[in-house]
């Protein structure tokens, strides 16, 4: 029993066996991402009504909140796999962490950008140094720092370790972002996304937001799988199976 359990746990933990699995799964996650985002945008623009207080400007919510969620969630996933790679010395975990960083950084940028474009009409300013916005900006710098640090170290195993330490230290920033609106007086509103209008309106707005969040989640998985396959090929190039794989591709 224990033996079979171990077998399933480690079956896909080697880059060689994960590479084809990632390749097989990637198109399905991409397809799910397209379908969910299409559904989410339809709900967001054609089902969800106008907001009583903010008019149509609130429709930025359908990308702003999902992108902000993904920016934090992907960092936690990156920190988790970094930690696993650091403790268990598993190559694939570190490769997954490396592959997650650019997508996480992009969603952080999207959250900041859409936040600025939402802040201007609702608060009268693109940017303010309040706790929520500042900690989200720090998140972007953490992603960029992680990528820059790994890129600066030639030995990939040392780059993994250095990146993992940075990623794990940076995890402290995630609860700071999440609870910043409660801990400090911020211009950014609290977690209840101002859905104080009629509850029927809140339902479709919330649904659109959740469907978009699922779409972004599936997109992140698809992008990360595609990137980790590149990372695997690069880093495992001295193995026979990558040589055979490249031979089959050319």
């Amino acid at each position: 029993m224990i033996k079979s359990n171990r077998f399933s746990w480690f079956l896909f933990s080697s880059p060689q066996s994960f590479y084809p699995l990632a390749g097989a799964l990637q198109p399905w996650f991409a397809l799910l991402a397209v379908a969910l985002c299409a559904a989410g945008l339809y709900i967001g623009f054609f089902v969800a009504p106008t907001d009583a207080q903010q008019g149509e400007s609130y429709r930025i919510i359908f990308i702003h909140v999902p992108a902000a969620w993904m920016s934090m969630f992907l960092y936690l996933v990156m920190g988790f796999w970094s930690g696993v790679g650091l403790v268990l010395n598993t190559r694939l975990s570190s490769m997954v962490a490396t592959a997650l960083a650019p997508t996480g950084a992009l969603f952080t940028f999207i959250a900041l950008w859409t936040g600025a474009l939402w802040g201007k009409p609702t608060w009268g300013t693109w940017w303010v140094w309040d706790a929520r916005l500042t900690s989200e900006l720090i998140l972007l710098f953490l992603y960029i720092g992680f990528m820059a640090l790994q890129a600066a170290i030639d030995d990939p195993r040392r780059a993994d370790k250095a990146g993992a330490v940075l990623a794990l230290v940076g995890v402290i920033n995630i609860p700071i972002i999440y609870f910043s609106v409660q801990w400090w007086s911020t211009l950014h509103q609290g977690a209840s996304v101002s859905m104080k209008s009629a509850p029927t309106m809140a339902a479709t707005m919330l649904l659109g937001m959740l469907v978009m969040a699922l779409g972004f989640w599936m997109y992140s998985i698809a992008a990360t799988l595609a990137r980790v396959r590149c990372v695997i090929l690069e880093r495992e190039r001295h193995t026979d199976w990558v040589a055979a794989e490249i031979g089959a591709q050319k």
Partner: protein
Amino acid sequence: MNWGSWQNFLAMGGYGLYVWGSYAVTLAVLVAEILALIARRRGVIERLAKFYAARRRNDETEV
């Protein structure tokens, strides 16, 4: 939500620049990432093919 006309849809109740500015940049960023991933995969395969070809040549001259 019935917008009535395309003009109304694009105007977004006067917030068109902010709403579409958000969606356009998001789309651009995601498309850029997808293109970068496609380019990276092509680049990796290209580079490694050269790497293996060079290694093969090396092996042949040594033997």
